[in-house]
């Protein structure tokens, strides 16, 4: 191992872990909806784009940051309720693939609507956090990435507390465990679904702002979903903790792979490497690291 640059390795690893946190932020939105309704919401990326574009367009029209955040959140809540009414409610009791296809269609509608309402222009977004490196023992770490990691951690803690200690959070868990039993004890399924879509809208807004500050608010934000899918396979589709751990694993492995073995494959391998890892993982542990193992009577 003589000559191996451990400092550089550490830098790639830390950078990968911090990138992974950004993937986790997107994956949490998927988990919220999957956990309560069993739907893989392919429109999460489009929601992220819609939220970020709405926020930045409002701030560019002179609305201050906190007010723009509140207005955008209100719009995302309204959107969540509208999706529940117009898309999910008519499809109750339909097979999961039908619901998935509905969210696929929804993603196109949202992408088109976002560009129709706010235009196609690319926007810069400054959250006031410098994206410059600071040096820790020779390892460069981005201040912005640290901030994003702190936000993700805060979100996970808040969501965990919410699910464990609030009445509505417990309602979410009841619906996730057994929809029919939840209905039998008087929980309003439609209201819970609308609420969870609104919560996913909040996650989309937070993730959209962080990704938007990094890469600009533009259409490609909706493609971020592609980064979240292997995270979900690794961590489990219904575990918030799994989304975090899966994100860290995907971020670290794809960066290390790109740097250390990328050249043997012609470079640019990180786009598919995470999927290859996820595929292998599916064969070994189909429910993911923290996902619930489904046992069904047949």
């Amino acid at each position, binding site marked *: 191992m003589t000559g191996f640059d451990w400092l550089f390795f550490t830098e790639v690893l830390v*950078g990968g872990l911090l990138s992974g946190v950004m993937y986790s932020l997107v994956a949490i939105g998927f988990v919220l909806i999957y956990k309560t309704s069993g739907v893989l919401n392919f429109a999460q990326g489009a929601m992220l784009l819609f939220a970020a574009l709405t926020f930045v367009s409002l701030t560019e029209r002179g609305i201050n940051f906190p007010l723009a955040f509140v207005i955008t959140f209100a719009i995302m809540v309204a959107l969540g309720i509208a999706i529940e009414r117009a898309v999910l409610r008519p499809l109750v009791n339909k097979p999961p693939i039908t619901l998935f296809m509905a969210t696929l269609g929804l993603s196109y509608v949202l992408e088109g609507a976002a560009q129709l309402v706010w235009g*196609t222009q690319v926007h810069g977004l400054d959250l006031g956090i410098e994206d410059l*490196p600071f040096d820790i023992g020779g390892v460069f770490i981005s201040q912005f990435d640290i901030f994003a990691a702190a936000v993700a951690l805060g979100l996970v803690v808040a969501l965990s507390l919410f699910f464990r200690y609030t009445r509505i959070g417990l309602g979410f868990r009841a619906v996730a465990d057994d929809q029919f039993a939840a209905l039998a004890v008087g929980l309003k399924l439609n209201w819970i679904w609308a609420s969870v879509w609104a919560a996913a809208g909040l996650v989309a807004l937070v993730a959209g702002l962080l990704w938007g500050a*990094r*890469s600009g608010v*533009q*259409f*490609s934000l909706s493609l971020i979903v592609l980064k979240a899918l292997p995270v979900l396979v690794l961590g489990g589709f219904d575990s918030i903790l799994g989304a975090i751990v899966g994100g860290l694993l995907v971020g670290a492995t794809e960066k290390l792979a790109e*740097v250390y073995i*990328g050249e043997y494959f012609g470079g640019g391998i990180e786009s598919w490497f995470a999927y290859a890892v996820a595929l292998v993982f599916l064969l070994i542990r189909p429910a993911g690291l923290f996902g619930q193992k489904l046992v069904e009577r047949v």
Partner: protein
Amino acid sequence: MTLFRSFRSTALAASLALGFTLPNVASALADEQHFPLQSYRVGPYAAGGTGFFGGFIDYLNLINTRDGGVNGVKLTWSEGETQYEVERGVEAYERLKSNPGVAAWNPLSVGIAYAMIDRITQDKTPLITINHGRTDSTDGRVFPYVFPLLLNPYSETSGIVNYIGSKEGGLESLKGKKIVVLYHGSPYGKETIPIYELLAKKYGFEVQQIEVPHPGNEQQAQWLTIRRAKPDYVVLRGWGVMNPVALKTAAKTGFPVDRIIGNVWSNSEEDVIPAGDAAKGYTAITTQASGAEYPVVKEIVKTLYDQGKGNLDDKKRIGSVYHNLGIVNGILNVEAIRIAQQKFGKRTLTGDEVRWGFEHLQLDQARVEALGAKDLFHSIHVTWDNHEGNGYVTFQQWDGAKWKVVSDWIAPDWALLRPIIEKSSEAYAKEKGIKIRTAADVDTVTN
């Protein structure tokens, strides 16, 4: 406009179905020349699409409004949305080609252009790939209908290396230097790999080429690799979101922005504004200057935008890089028609006649000035076998608010590149069984 066009094509198709004889479409529609536009106004690259096609349409509209068309021939256009997707582009081609009097195709997409080459060759209509496309289509002996006007990817590479050489005190000073090329993981991004290798060998610099997978919204690994390689310069050959992310990640990993040189698809406002302060001091190549101070742009503002007839929704984008590229593209298309009219008559021309016009598209600096485009672009000199037309390049630096030109007009090393282009085009001709044209074939025109 579109409805009218579609009504007219339906009427034309109906006439044909009923057995009416139309001896010559051109004579039947003697006062219109049509541009079918495979535009992209929604989707991931809509910002570029709206700017470019907006500028192109603005110029066509200016010619109609100010001059009454080209020698009385009105210019018309119809749009087919592609979202920059190849299959949609091909579908739009098949749908729009039935419009009478088609002058030329301008898809502004490498993928769509590649998919159209066989079709437009069969249909004998020019395909314009300004600043992009396949490099060997420069060779008009093999590609009679394809025109990578102003700048093909190899010339762009040569221009960038010449510029870096000039910054270092001459090309001989490149010896021992190290250049990293960060390229988009697509056929477009990979097009210049061999030419960088060739130029590295010729001038004695070391080159390392690193791929960024599409779309490029995550580049931590690539920039850490760059930091470890410690290059003197990084050439950014990006597209879309890859560009601002590259600039931000460079800042994050401590690489100086004034050592990054962008290629021609990394040179717009859309590439730098999202990067914020990280883009200040970034330099990129261009074939056309940005800004609204050029007479032709001022005329567009006065004639169209002040009358509420401009194509851009956002007036702040007038004079932006993509808008000005669209205007320059408009100038080149219109002048090709004007030149062809001098030979074939002031009427609607066939696609093959417009091809002849492009093959004689020679605008020196005096003519460029007369067109109101002095310093907007340099000049062009297309011939039957050189479909690029020896475009000059310049370099612009982003100061945080606007682009500022920081170099003279620079000529790529065309003599060095030509044999490589011919080798590639001849191999293509052999593979496809294409007979290589000679100068004698140029005037053979289909009516």
